């Protein structure tokens, strides 16, 4: 090949690559309008709230200490610094973590953010002052103290070394608040916004919308790409669909059901892009162990054995945002059970006829043949009511007669907490994938307040503690299998439903946002841009 032809070939290749490169180069400007599928959040303070309504509305205004890599948010362990300078290596056998804080971070009022602000925010998250609420404090159980040793250094000392620490630290709700304000008015952030994130707060109309504009002093040079954003609260799915159809809003980031995806792709074609992925959310069926006959493990096992997970999940994923058969651990995690491991657990056996025969035998043995009971459920369509319709029919195949009692969210929680149910549809939705902490849901109520099975089980706690304190990944995975087998098979404390699938349809001009297993994560919009 002559020099000239080589040059021409190179030029040709460059010309071919140019449009793709240009398409991937972020463009500056524009206002992103998106929807938050909820009513007004209870407050704007993410430390005290657990709802996406708060985090989708306020994350663009705040910084955090570390976060999941926004370029690789689906990874469960790719953590990067936000206001720190580099991810540290632990010392003291994994019990001391020292973070250096950037010196170029400014609050939206122009004052500098220091290590004291970071330390104070984390002290409030781990050990909230009396009268204050830190909704996820149990997730920070391994943290002993948080201190600012100088203006740019924060030291975390742990009670015990654990792989669950970094995912806990990456909590997307763990906004950095200003120390002076927290000391002056601890409730300030419930009603006001003052952060150091990519966008500055401009307006909030309760239950209607929240708006922000580009922060010109943002410490990540060049970001954010948007001039601003407007988030509209739209609790009705029909309104969301119409808004995306008419391009009045570009997307909603929580997730929509398959039917919405099908409608939008059919009507809008390539004007809409659909991002999908496993969701760190799962429903389960929980039996009240204090009610007869559900105090009998044979009856609980029968309920589990009657359900054909493997055959049910694929068709259900066409109508409901559930997709992947899994155990107690998020299926995308390295700690999750493989299909072969699951198939050894009751309720996951590959032969459903054998499974149902065993269920009938157990019911007969327990004197619960033809049992009639009520399934308590939450008045939410996706996926709660779909789950009930499915499992009631599955249970009917082993002779059980089940009716459904649907309650609005308030009374539903009252029912859960007041033990006024036979069997209920339950749930476990988590933020960052942190299996060792996420499975806390399967501990007795005395240890984990959001467990509603009403049982005490010391062996359950011991197996969990052994798993949590294990620092060797291989041994920890094995310990997780033992805990999972005990919870699902030996004691049948919970009956898992297929894990959720996150489906986010968005106008194709929205770029730079990547889907991840949690609808709480990666919502600061710093990397989002509009290809218009």
């Amino acid at each position: 090949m002559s020099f000239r032809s080589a040059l021409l070939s190179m030029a040709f290749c460059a010309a071919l690559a140019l449009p793709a490169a240009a398409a991937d180069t972020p463009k500056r400007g524009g206002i992103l309008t998106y929807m938050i599928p909820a009513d007004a959040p209870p407050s704007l303070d993410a430390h005290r709230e657990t709802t996406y309504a708060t985090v989708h509305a306020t994350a663009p205004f705040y910084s955090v200490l570390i976060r999941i890599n926004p370029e690789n948010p689906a990874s469960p362990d790719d953590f990067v610094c936000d206001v720190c300078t580099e991810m540290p290596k632990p010392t003291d056998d994994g019990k001391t973590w020292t973070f250096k804080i950037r010196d170029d971070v400014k609050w939206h009022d122009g004052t500098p953010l220091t290590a004291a602000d970071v330390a104070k925010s984390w002290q409030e998250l781990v050990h909230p002052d009396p009268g204050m609420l830190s909704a996820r404090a149990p997730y920070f159980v391994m943290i002993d103290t948080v201190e600012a040793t100088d203006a740019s250094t924060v030291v975390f000392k742990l009670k015990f070394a654990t792989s669950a620490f970094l995912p806990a630290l990456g909590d997307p709700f763990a906004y950095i608040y200003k120390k002076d304000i927290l000391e002056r008015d601890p409730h300030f952030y419930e009603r006001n916004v003052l952060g150091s994130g990519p966008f500055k707060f401009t307006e909030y109309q309760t239950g209607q919308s929240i708006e922000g504009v580009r922060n010109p002093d943002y410490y990540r040079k060049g970001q954010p790409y948007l001039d601003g954003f407007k988030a509209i609260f739209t609790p009705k799915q029909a309104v969301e669909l119409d808004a995306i159809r008419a391009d009045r809003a570009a997307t909603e980031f929580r997730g929509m059901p398959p039917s919405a995806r099908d409608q939008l792709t059919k009507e809008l074609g390539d004007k809409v892009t659909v991002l999908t992925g496993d969701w760190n959310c799962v429903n389960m069926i929980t039996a009240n162990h204090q009610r007869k006959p559900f105090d009998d493990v044979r009856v609980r096992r029968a309920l589990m054995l009657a359900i054909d997970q493997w055959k049910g999940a694929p068709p259900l994923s066409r109508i409901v945002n559930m997709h992947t058969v899994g155990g107690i651990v998020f299926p995308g995690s390295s700690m999750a059970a493989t299909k072969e491991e699951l198939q050894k657990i009751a309720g996951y056996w590959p032969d459903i006829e054998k499974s149902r025969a065993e269920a009938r035998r157990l019911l007969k043995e327990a004197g619960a043949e033809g049992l009639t009971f009520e399934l308590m459920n939450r008045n939410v369509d996706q996926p709660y009511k779909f789950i009930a319709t499915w499992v009631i029919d599955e249970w009917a195949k082993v002779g059980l007669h089940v009716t459904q009692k649907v309650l609005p969210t308030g009374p539903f929680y009252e029912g859960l907490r007041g033990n006024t149910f036979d069997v209920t549809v339950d749930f476990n939705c988590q933020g960052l994938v942190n299996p060792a902490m996420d499975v806390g849901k399967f501990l007795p109520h005395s240890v984990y307040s959001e467990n509603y099975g009403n049982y005490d089980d010391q062996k359950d706690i011991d197996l969990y503690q052994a798993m949590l304190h294990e620092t060797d990944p291989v041994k920890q995975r094995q310990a997780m299998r033992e805990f999972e087998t005990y919870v699902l098979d030996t004691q049948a404390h919970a009956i898992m439903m297929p894990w959720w699938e996150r489906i986010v349809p968005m106008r194709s001009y929205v770029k730079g946002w990547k889907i991840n297993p949690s609808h709480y994560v990666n919502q600061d919009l710093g990397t989002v841009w509009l290809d218009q």
Partner: protein
Amino acid sequence: MSATPADDAPDPRRTVWQSALRFCRREPLGTFGLLLVIIMALTGFSAEWIAPYNPTANDFAAMTEPPSLEHLLGTDQFGRDLMSRIIHGARTALIVGLTSAIFGGFSGLVLGVSSAYFGGKIDLIVQRLSDIVMAFPLIILALAVVAIFGPGVQNVILAITIPLIPRCSRVVRASALTIRSMPYVDAARACGFGHTRIILRHMVPNVMAPFLIMVTSFVGQAILAEASLSYLGLGVQEPVPAWGLMLQGGAEEYASTAPWIAIFPGVAIMLAVLGINLFGDALRDALDPKLRER
């Protein structure tokens, strides 16, 4: 040819069949309505025998199938046969509609006649309580009752029955007030008959015409209210087949991709309410002497 008053005078020699035939001839729309009601009733009560499939059995191999020879009205998102669910749904509609209408109607009858007969403070209290209840639209009051007691068939019946009581009571009272001042009621009182006998033997039979018309219209209202409550997720719950519930599951998510899921339960509700209302109108025409003379 218009009927003369003499044609419409009650004729004791006329048999039930002759009266029915006469009603059919004079009220063709009402007859059509009655036919719809009879079909609905027969369908509902023989659902087990005539429904081609189990209405609650999921069939994932037949999800959202359009109408075909195998599934005449198609299937829903769980693959359940829509025709079977509509047939069984007729039973739910009838149970809720008839029970609510009968309980609401009879309670209203007792209250209305007693209120008119006794008058005074009893009348005042009953009517003011009725005013309070009637200040709320039926569906709003039913929503409030369901919110307090929770969803479910029994609670839905209760929720619909309560708002119907004062509506019936008010109409019955108006008729009973006229009857109270009739000479034969005074005569009965003068003869020393007890209140119960006067009410049951002399007043109630004379308010039966407006009462029956009210009860008939209540059945339609109750079916519509049940469908509305189920549509709002507050009535009958899955997997029980109920028309409003079928609309809730289908209309919102599958209106454009599988419209039959919403259309057929909607048609069932429309035909049932239309039939009952047409029959109720015709019954009013047949029983009201003033309308008969027109």
